[in-house]
């Protein structure tokens, strides 16, 4: 993975740029000490690191506007950063860039249960949005695994999903409005507490634009009343294909579970050794969760287990109470940690049509043998969002590169069967150079033109999402 060569002219002007930023921000909100900027050298994609020119931590929309105006005037690239939990390198800086962190923007601005929305500053974490409305039994639906730490700003940047999007959708389906600062410092308000756009759906294109169109400082989010209850059923199968068919049959039967999670044997074994959730030792395991009142849950689980039985499960365990539910979820929730215990791994995020599940799993198995690297599969089966975990040894020379090549092949396979490179993590730098596999030059050009409109100088997170050769003429212009 390459990043553009830092602009020596910007590096030479560091003192002046920092001084100008200090004129508009409190002293402690501009971090330029080379030891302290280390904290911003990477996000959760730790394989790539580079300390920024400096980092700024504005505490208001006005301060964000001031920072962007100055950076625009100085021609300095800006890399927006939520909580730094991106697995795709979305917040990876370059040496000539300013990291704009939203960590000090954490206020709840308005809570409105009657109209079912909350307005927050975007440095607030995902889970604490739900935390702010929980006492009234409301919640914010998108629930990425990193929800304890990840910021709403990053959720909007990457259009984050989670385990429950089969029913509730992803960030873009739950985002009603934003306050956003454009690169030249202009503050715009888009959407609000009402539904849908009056003109072009700018909100729709901003969500998921990976911080390349503007810096979102405030967000109006849809909140929902919590369901009365939820309970899962666990089912084990002796073949991946059968588990895939079962998923398809459940969906066709008209049940809409809130989550359908899939784990294969390597993951089942690792989590069992780690968390002792009592999972059966089988080829494929599904956890299907439904919501509602006790009676509604019974009705839906009854239907689901009836369908599952037709596929001869090796295990079928319906939760009857909170304790059993927690036990069923225990293994799934610790799957990533468990895999990390036994090995270094790279987590992929491609999405495939649900109908291609058996074929893709078989091909991943074959490729695993060809590459000589193990793979565990744990993912959201209801929506086809896969998370293959490729195991490698970070201390073994060449293993990371081999792993990346294997990962690229899996993602290309996802595209081949009608899916995409990334379902919820974003492109960042990680999948940037694979974009040609999914998009024609014309497809990409159409997207670049959108950035031309929002950020004509190409200063916002410029070296991400699109292959560098595709964006070069714009970035150096």
């Amino acid at each position, binding site marked *: 993975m390459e990043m553009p060569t830092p602009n020596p002219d910007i590096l030479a002007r560091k003192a002046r740029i920092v001084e100008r930023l200090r004129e508009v921000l409190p002293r402690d909100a501009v971090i330029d000490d080379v030891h302290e900027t280390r904290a911003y050298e990477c996000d959760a994609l730790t394989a790539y690191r580079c300390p920024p020119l400096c980092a700024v931590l504005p505490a208001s929309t006005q301060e964000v506007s001031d920072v962007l105006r100055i950076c625009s005037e100085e021609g300095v690239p800006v890399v927006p950063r939520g909580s730094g939990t991106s697995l795709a390198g979305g917040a990876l800086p370059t040496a000539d860039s300013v990291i704009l962190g939203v960590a000090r923007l954490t206020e709840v601005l308005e809570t409105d249960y009657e109209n079912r929305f909350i307005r927050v500053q975007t440095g607030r974490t995902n889970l604490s949005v739900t935390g702010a409305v929980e006492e009234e039994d409301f919640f914010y639906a998108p629930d990425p695994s990193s929800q304890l730490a990840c910021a709403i700003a990053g959720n909007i940047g990457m259009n984050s999903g989670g385990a429950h999007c089969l029913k509730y959708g992803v960030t873009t389906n739950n985002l009603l409005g934003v306050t956003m600062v454009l690169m030249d410092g202009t503050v715009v308000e888009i959407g609000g*507490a009402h539904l849908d756009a*009056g003109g*072009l*759906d700018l909100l729709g294109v901003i969500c998921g634009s990976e911080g390349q169109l503007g810096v979102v400082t405030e967000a109006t989010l849809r909140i929902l009343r919590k*369901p009365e209850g939820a309970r899962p059923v666990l089912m084990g199968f002796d073949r991946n294909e059968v588990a895939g068919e079962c998923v398809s049959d459940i*969906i066709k039967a008209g049940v809409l579970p809130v989550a359908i999670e899939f784990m294969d044997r390597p993951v089942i074994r690792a989590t069992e050794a780690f968390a002792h959730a009592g999972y059966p030792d089988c080829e494929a395991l599904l956890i299907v969760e439904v919501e509602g009142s006790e009676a*509604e849950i019974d009705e*839906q689980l009854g239907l689901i287990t009836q369908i599952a039985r037709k596929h001869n499960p090796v295990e079928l365990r319906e939760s009857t109470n909170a304790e059993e539910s927690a036990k069923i979820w225990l293994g799934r929730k610790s799957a990533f940690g468990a895999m990390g215990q036994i090995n270094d791994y790279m987590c992929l995020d491609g999405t495939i049509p649900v109908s291609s599940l058996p074929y893709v799993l078989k091909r991943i198995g074959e490729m695993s043998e060809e590459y000589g690297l193990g793979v565990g599969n744990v993912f959201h089966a209801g929506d086809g969002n896969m998370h293959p975990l490729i195991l490698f040894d970070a201390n073994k020379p060449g293993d990371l590169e081999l792993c990346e090549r294997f990962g690229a092949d899996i993602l290309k396979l996802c595209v081949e069967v009608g899916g995409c490179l990334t379902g919820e993590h974003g492109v960042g730098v990680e999948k940037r150079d694979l974009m040609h596999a999914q998009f024609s030059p014309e*497809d990409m050009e159409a*997207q670049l033109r959108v950035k031309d409109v929002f950020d004509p100088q190409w200063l916002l997170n410029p070296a991400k999402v699109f292959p560098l050769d595709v964006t070069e003429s714009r970035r150096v212009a």
Partner: protein
Amino acid sequence: MMNPVTEAELAEAVAGAPGPLRIMGGGTRPIGRPVAGELLSVAGLTGIELYEPGALTIVVKAGTPLAEVEAALAGEGQRLPFEPMDHRVLLGSTGEPTIGGVAAANVSGPRRIQAGACRDSLMGVRLVDGRGTVIKNGGRVMKNVTGYDLVKLMAGSYGTLGVLSELSFKVLPVPEAVAVLLIEGLSDEEAVRALSAALGSPFDVSGAAHAPVGVDGAPVTMIRIEGFADSVAYRAEALKTLLAGVGEIAVETDPEKTAAGWRWVRDVEGFAGQPGDVWRISVKPSEGPRVGAALQAQGLLYDWGGGLIWARVAEGRDIRPALEGIGGHATLIRASEETRAALPVFQPELAPLAAISAGLRAQFDPRGILNPGLMG
């Protein structure tokens, strides 16, 4: 009139167009400022490309009649989640609505509050931009964050950024049962408060409307729930208990009657054949009654828990002053050509956003030939 039958022909038609084009699917939604230009029909691009019920996915060409899409889905017990409105009744138009027209106008009905708008179910598009270039974006999977989401930008852009050629949608199962709670005689404020209470409950309401003048002339408030039969029965009772103090509540479960009732709301049938302009206004639901009262309307219908107001008002009058200080947006859906030429049909944007919209149009359609001026 140009009538391409393949995407390649469509691209050729746009690339070779000497001047402005008026883009049409089924021609049932004459919405927006009148456009002068050669007619380009997309109705020739038809057919269901792929339908996988087990993956809740359908891919269709843009000119496919909506009725054909809905019939194919119904055959597998599925449907488009967003309950698209049929504009023919309200607008007195004829023809066959196309799926491309539905997407281009982001047409969403009462279920929008629960299942999202058309743009939320739209997973992928293919389109021809103003240069005649074919562009694809999104795909046919629900979770996709690869590159910018131009799918949503296209939904509701009324053919001004590109001519849609193919669309893929997430679909949902048709629920086994439906029940509608009916409350008569509520004022607009009381009704919206009741709808808010229902929508803020855990009972998964999929329709929440209020007609100050219902089919039989009296005010009627409607709350819909859908799902498995036992669950619907349970939730209907739970909602009755929740709303016990509001008024007398009747529950209708006959599938034909409930479907007809919500079609009446969805298609704004009550305004059909009645004089006046018709506006569609989206506001914060609790502001609905206040805005409704300020409109000096001849007819009102509230959907989306009070957040969507359909208003029938005197011809040629801009109602937007009623929104001042409240936010939201208003679109003039039905009016004479003269009125649509004189008043902004779509909500005017503040300067920085207007500049972005204009910039996007210039990028996608540099010659300004795709439905020029339609959105203002």
